[in-house]
Structures are given as structure tokens and as C-alpha cells.
């Protein structure tokens, strides 16, 4: 057991070192942009996975929180000159507040109807922001004021600083997941995801646990929203509440391994990697290619690997470990 933990720790350390060193090793802006997208969607996936993966509340409406985070910080920045760093936290809080009534409505529903209801809430928010022309720029959206290199206002020269910001976000998301997974909350979440009635029968307040994890999930997703619009310097309802955000949040987790710590990261690397390759082969302007490929991968995973691709990796890892153990003649019992 201890051996496994220390080995796991080694790999995480190595991965972190590579992640930190990456902007120094790769200078291409195009590549850094892809890395930023990977980290961002991995982070959104991690946020989704806390609720969708562990507690099996299959939301297809996380764009609601992404959008609320994006709009809160942008409105604070443009209308009140508040730094997006503060706006980011404010956005997270707005998202948490929004998750309470949305959760109250949706958590009474199960399975597909939960998913449908969450789609509807995100769409309603998008339609509302399309209507708020005076306050939130309506359908035309707005660009961010360009402040040059202003780290305190979350604006940087070059892409590397953005990369580190989102890397920190992902690290925080993973740390929170790790901590929850190993505490009583992790057990309660999985129990609720497996069988809500049986969980209630042994004293789990299913409604409360779902509400709590929804708060965390909404908060983290909103941080991603702020980051994203700061990064692309533009916001409009179709970007901020994009259905694709909701879809991809769920997709990366399912493809990688639903309800696992590293699932969303693995899923994002695979999906975004494929998408980047496709783009470099086909060039831009082929609307639909990316999601066509994503949906094919998703169907394949559901039919052949419903537990996600992480299973393949851990199995391979176990084989390698078992192999080296046999070579070194180390007894198999730890």
C-alpha cells in the first residue's frame, strides 16, 4: 500500500515538473494555446466530475456556471474597474448562489430528466443574457479593455502566464478532488451515485450532499469562465453559455474515466489532442469535424469501455509493475 502511494507520488511529481517546464521547452504560441485549452477543459472536467462522476448527477448544463463566472467578472471589470482576480471569486460566489435554486429544481429529477432540466437552465440563462442589452451588451457582446501587461488585472504579455494561471486552477481542482475522494464526503458521493435510497437508509442526507457538491462544482466552473473570457478578450452569450462547454465538461470525464481523479485530465488530453491534430491536418473552416470525432469517440467508449480509458492505462501500469516485480523477484505481497 505504502509502495503504491509513494510510486503514485513520484508520477504526480514528474507530471507536475513536466507541466511547469513545458512553456520553456515549447516556444510555439500555437502549441501553448493548445496546452491552455487542454488544461482549461481538464479543469472544467474536474469540476463537472465532482458532481457528475462521483455523485452521478449527469449535468448537461455546466455552461450556466461558466457563463455566470465570465459575465460577473467582465461586468465588474468594465463597469466598476474591479480586477478580474476579485471578479473571478465574485463569479464563483454568484455561481454558487445560482446553483441553489437550480439544484432545488433539478435534484428532484433523476437520470435523463435531470440532464434535460440542466440543459434548459443553461439555455434560459443564455437567452436572458441575449436580452440584457443595456447591462450585458446583448448578442453583440463586448471586448475586454486592453490594459497591456497588467498582472493585477489578469492581463499578460504572451501566453505563458495564462498557461500558469490555468495550471494552478487545475492543480487546485485536482487537490480538492483528491481531498474529497479520501474523506467521508467521497464515500457519501459515490454512495448517492450508486443508490440514493440505500444511501439514505444508512443516514446519508442525499439532498444535502448533492447540494454541497453542486456548490463546489459550480464555483470551480465559474472560475474557468472568468479565465476563459479574460484569455480571449471577448465575451458574448453564445461564447459564455456555449452548449459545447456543457458537453465537453461531461465528455472529457466520461471518455477519461467517470468518477476518477485523473479521468478528466486523460479524457481532455485525448480529445483536445485529437482535435489539434485534426486542425493541423485539415486546417480551419471545417465546422463539425471536431464534434463528429468527439461523438464517435464517446460512442466507442460507451460501448466498449464504459468505465473510461483510465482503465486501459491502469491495467497497463499494473502489468508493467507486475513485470518489473517478477524480474526483481520481489514478493508480491506488500
Amino acid at each position, binding site marked *: 500500500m505504502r509502495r503504491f502511494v509513494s510510486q503514485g507520488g513520484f508520477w504526480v511529481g514528474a507530471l507536475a515538473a513536466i507541466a511547469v517546464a513545458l512553456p520553456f521547452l515549447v516556444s510555439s504560441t500555437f502549441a501553448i494555446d493548445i496546452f491552455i485549452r487542454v488544461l482549461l477543459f481538464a479543469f472544467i472536467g474536474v469540476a463537472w466530475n465532482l458532481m457528475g462522476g462521483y455523485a452521478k448527477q449527469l449535468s448537461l448544463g455546466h455552461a450556466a456556471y461558466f457563463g455566470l463566472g465570465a459575465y460577473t467578472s467582465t461586468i465588474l471589470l468594465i463597469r466598476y474597474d474591479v480586477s478580474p482576480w476579485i471578479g473571478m471569486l465574485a463569479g464563483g460566489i454568484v455561481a454558487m448562489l445560482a446553483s441553489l435554486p437550480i439544484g432545488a429544481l433539478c435534484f428532484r429529477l433523476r437520470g*435523463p430528466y435531470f440532464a434535460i432540466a440542466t440543459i434548459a437552465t443553461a439555455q434560459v440563462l443564455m437567452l436572458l443574457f441575449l436580452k440584457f442589452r443595456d447591462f450585458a451588451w446583448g448578442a453583440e457582446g463586448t471586448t475586454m479593455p486592453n490594459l497591456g501587461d497588467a498582472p493585477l488585472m489578469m492581463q499578460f504579455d504572451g501566453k505563458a502566464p495564462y498557461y500558469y494561471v490555468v495550471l494552478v486552477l487545475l492543480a487546485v481542482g485536482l487537490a480538492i478532488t483528491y481531498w474529497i475522494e479520501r474523506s467521508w464526503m467521497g464515500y457519501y458521493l459515490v454512495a448517492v451515485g450508486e443508490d440514493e435510497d440505500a444511501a439514505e437508509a444508512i443516514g446519508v442526507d442525499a439532498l444535502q450532499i448533492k447540494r454541497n457538491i453542486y456548490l463546489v462544482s459550480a464555483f470551480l466552473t465559474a472560475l474557468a469562465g472568468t479565465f476563459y473570457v479574460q484569455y480571449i478578450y471577448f465575451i458574448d452569450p453564445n461564447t459564455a453559455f456555449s452548449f459545447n462547454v456543457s458537453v465537453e465538461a461531461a465528455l472529457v470525464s466520461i471518455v477519461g474515466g467517470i468518477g476518477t481523479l485523473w479521468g478528466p485530465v486523460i479524457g481532455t488530453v485525448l480529445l483536445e489532442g485529437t482535435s489539434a491534430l485534426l486542425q493541423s491536418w485539415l486546417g480551419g473552416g471545417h465546422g463539425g469535424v471536431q464534434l463528429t470525432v468527439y461523438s464517435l469517440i464517446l460512442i466507442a467508449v460507451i460501448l466498449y469501455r464504459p468505465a473510461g480509458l483510465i482503465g486501459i492505462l491502469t491495467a497497463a501500469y499494473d502489468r508493467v509493475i507486475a513485470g518489473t516485480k517478477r524480474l526483481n523477484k520481489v514478493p508480491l505481497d506488500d
Partner: protein
Amino acid sequence: MLTTIAQAVVNGLLIGGIYALVSIGVTLIFGVVKIVNFAQGEFVMIGMYITFFLATSFGIDPLVALVISMLALFFIGVLLQHFLIRRVLELGDMPQIFLTFALSLLLVNIALLLFTANYRTVQTAYSETAIHIGAINVPLAKLIAFAVAMLLSGLLWMFLHGTDLGKAMRAAAQNRDVAMLMGINPDRVYCVAVGVALALAGAAGSLLMPFYPAYPLVGQIFVLMAFVAVVLGTLGNITGALIASLMMGVAESLGIQFVGADSGLIVVFVMLLLTLALRPNGLFGGWSR
């Protein structure tokens, strides 16, 4: 004022007939196979493109194309059930939801690749014709669509109540295990159910074509309408879905008339959320295990 309301109600009822075809399909699949088909709207879209190409390439009238698109979609439905849905039936919520969801994504994006996001329309001899009843204006194409939709719903009702296969389907919808004990082959029943449901979506596509443009995302509004109608009409209940669809059409039409042209979608979503909020018990019956 009265005329405006009457006109809005008529418009709503006419489009409600199309919603009914889609919702009956969703409710049939849910009732028999116990799957919510997120991709039902995309089969309407396929029906529209089939009709579009038959009309533009061979000059076939959409009402004739209807037969072809229904047959094609029935066949697709059988394949869909046999090769995809069947494999997730014993699995949990996640595979069941995301399989048809992925299918919906796939079909939309393939359509985007093949046909681009452009709107495609078909002009027929009756596209611009309208009948006037007093001050109310009834477009002929919509009236035909409504009449055919009602006819097909009636035929489905007769099929479910008058044939052995239809009765087997209703038995399977009531209780899968008992139906199997009675010697009903569930695979065959499921295939036919999905086939029929998709054929109805295909019919909806053909009927829409004379007055509604085809584009890759066209199915989404119909499937959302269908979800609301299916929930309102109690899951798995075909007559309920029909009546609810007509009501939805009217509600949407009144919303557009009195709240604003861009509010149709908001009205739909708010209705969906209200329905889910006020009638969750109707759902729980079907989904708590």
C-alpha cells in the same frame, strides 16, 4: 384582438401536430424500450434532408417523399435499436443517456459537414396557398401537415390496439418481465418500436419541408418541445403526448404573439422547467428503481 388570438391558436394547433409526431416517437421509445432518445430531433432533420433532396433532385413532392422518408427512417430505427441501443439496455443511466446524446451530436455535426449550416427550403405549389376562414388565415401546407400528422397518430393508435404486434408492444411497455413470460420476443418488439418512432420523426420532417427550412440544428427545437409534451402528457402515454403537444404548440404561438417573436424559445424552456418543477412525481414513477 379576438381574431389575433384565434389566429395564434390556429397557428399553434397546426404546428402542434408536428410536435405531436415527434413526442409520440419519444414517448413510444420511452414506454417500450425505457430509453429517452435525445436524438429524436435529429431524425426529423434527416427526414427533412431526405425530402429536400428528393424534391430538388427528382422533383418529388414532399407528400410523396413522406413515404420514402418514413420507410428509410423505420429501417434506420431498426438498425439503431439492434446495433446500439440494445447494448446499453442493461447498463446504468450514464451509458443510456450519453449514447443517444452522442448520436445526436454525431448526426448534427455530420449534417454540418455534408450540408453546411445553410438553410434549405423547398417550394411547392401549395407553399404559398392559404385558406381563409373568416378573418383567419390557414396556410394550406400547414393544414396538410396537421391533417397527415393526425392521420398517422390515428393509424399508430389502431396499430397498438388492433394488431398482435401492437398489443405485444403495449404489454412490453407495461411490464417487460411479464411480456417476456407471455412469449413476446422483446428484441423484435423493441426494434419495431424504435423503427415506428423514427418513421414518425421522418414523417414530421417531410411534412415540415414545404414551410420550414432544413438546417443541421433544426431538430433541437422539436426534441425540446417533445420532452415538455412527453412529461406533461405523462411518460409513456401516447394520447397524453398528443394532447400535450397540441397545447404546447398553442402556448408557444401565443407566447410569440404576445411576448415577442424572439421569445418562443424562452417560453419553451420556461414551460419545460415549470413542468419538471411541478410534475416531478409523474417522472419518478418511471425513473425511480
